[in-house]
């Protein structure tokens, strides 16, 4: 079996986590894609940590407003019923447990729920931005990542080596091969995505994985 990175699969699966009315903060990059796959009948409210609730899609060309951008600086819109606020209120909402779920990108994630995504010492140091507050504050923290890096190494680890963004805060990890819960210091495989198999995942992942008794194959094609 050959691995093919597939961001769409990750976004599709994560989008199914949400309940109608959930308040969600999506990190920049891969997590942003999740917004495109929310099932019909489910409305989620997107929080943008730069200071508003009700983040909407990109505006039509020519309708960009330099004062209406997401946390990555990209032009967006605001939904009816949205609200603007300052950074203290924005993070009060995040840290105070008023956000139901956050989806964050990954450099490394480990079976203890540790996440590293803000710093490769001496090399790349973007900074944590709002990620440390999001991981501590959101009720559900979902790590979204391709299962392997470009060299083929597992992004799911026994223990992160990079500086942590958060210690023990990740609840779920969704890759393009499967969906994992973090429980009692191990990854619990809940779903494996077609065409991958349980054996493939256990063999190729550099971490302890328990296969859930209800683990099942899911086709996100």
């Amino acid at each position: 079996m050959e691995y093919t990175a597939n961001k769409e699969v990750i976004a599709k699966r994560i989008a199914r986590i949400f309940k109608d009315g959930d308040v969600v903060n999506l990190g920049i990059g891969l997590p942003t894609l999740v917004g495109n796959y929310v099932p019909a009948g489910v409305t989620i409210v997107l929080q943008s940590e730069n200071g508003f609730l009700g983040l909407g899609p990109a505006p039509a060309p020519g309708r960009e407003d330099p004062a209406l951008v997401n946390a990555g600086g990209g032009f967006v819109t605001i939904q009816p019923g949205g609200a603007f606020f300052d950074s203290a209120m924005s993070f009060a909402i995040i840290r105070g447990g008023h956000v139901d779920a956050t989806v964050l990108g990954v450099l490394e994630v480990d079976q203890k729920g540790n996440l590293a995504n803000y710093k490769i010492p001496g090399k790349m140091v973007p900074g944590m931005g709002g990620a440390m507050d999001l991981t501590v504050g959101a009720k559900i923290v979902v790590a979204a990542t391709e299962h392997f890096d470009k060299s083929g190494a597992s992004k799911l680890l026994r223990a992160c080596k990079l500086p942590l963004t958060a210690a023990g805060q990740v609840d779920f990890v969704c890759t393009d091969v499967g969906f994992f819960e973090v429980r009692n210091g191990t990854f619990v495989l809940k779903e494996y995505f077609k065409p991958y198999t349980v054996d493939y995942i256990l063999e190729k992942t550099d971490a302890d994985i328990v296969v859930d008794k209800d683990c099942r194959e899911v086709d996100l094609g």
Partner: protein
Amino acid sequence: MVAKPIIAAEKAVELIKEGDTVMVGGFLGCGSPPALIDALEQQGTKNLTLVCNDTAFLNFKTGACTHVAKLVAKKQFRKIVVSHIGTNQETQRQMNEGETEVVLVPQGTLAERIRAAGAGLAGVLTPTGVGTEVQEGKQVLDVDGRKFLLEKALPGNVALLKAKKADKAGNLVYDKAARNFNPLMAMACETVIVEADEIVEIGQLDPEIVVTPSVLVHYLVRSKKQG
């Protein structure tokens, strides 16, 4: 955006259970939710903890009894956490006779403790109260050579708030000085119930002027003003 349930005041206060900590917005009653207070008095739930700026007005001579003072008079609280009771003789009587535990908190400290609970902070370091009775039993920290009290976050179970206008999603704006503690309590409670003078459709409140964003509000109640 998702609409929040609009329910009757009587239904709303059923969410309050014996033993709960109830936060009530308002400052000497200005900004308190009258229908919700009346419904809670009617329901009669006891052993509550009140968090409020004050206990409004209760005067033995004139018989005046307003806002949360109605609940004090009915002895629905086992504990009262406020900054001021000078306008409520019954609160003072209950305190002096040991019937009710009254905790006096400096008003700015009360505001920050409520906000901290809503903001996921464990507390703040304030200079207010250093060297006074307020300091008793609290951790005193030295920061850069000055003393501060560690004042812990104060969360609640249910908030009873008053807004001037809400949209159906739960975004709120307030009326002048009736704002006071309402926006802070909206952050700090598991269940936030708002009595609004006017409830408009989603999209009819300018996102720039919203004071309390919808995410903090769980139930809306129409005030009697609205009919």
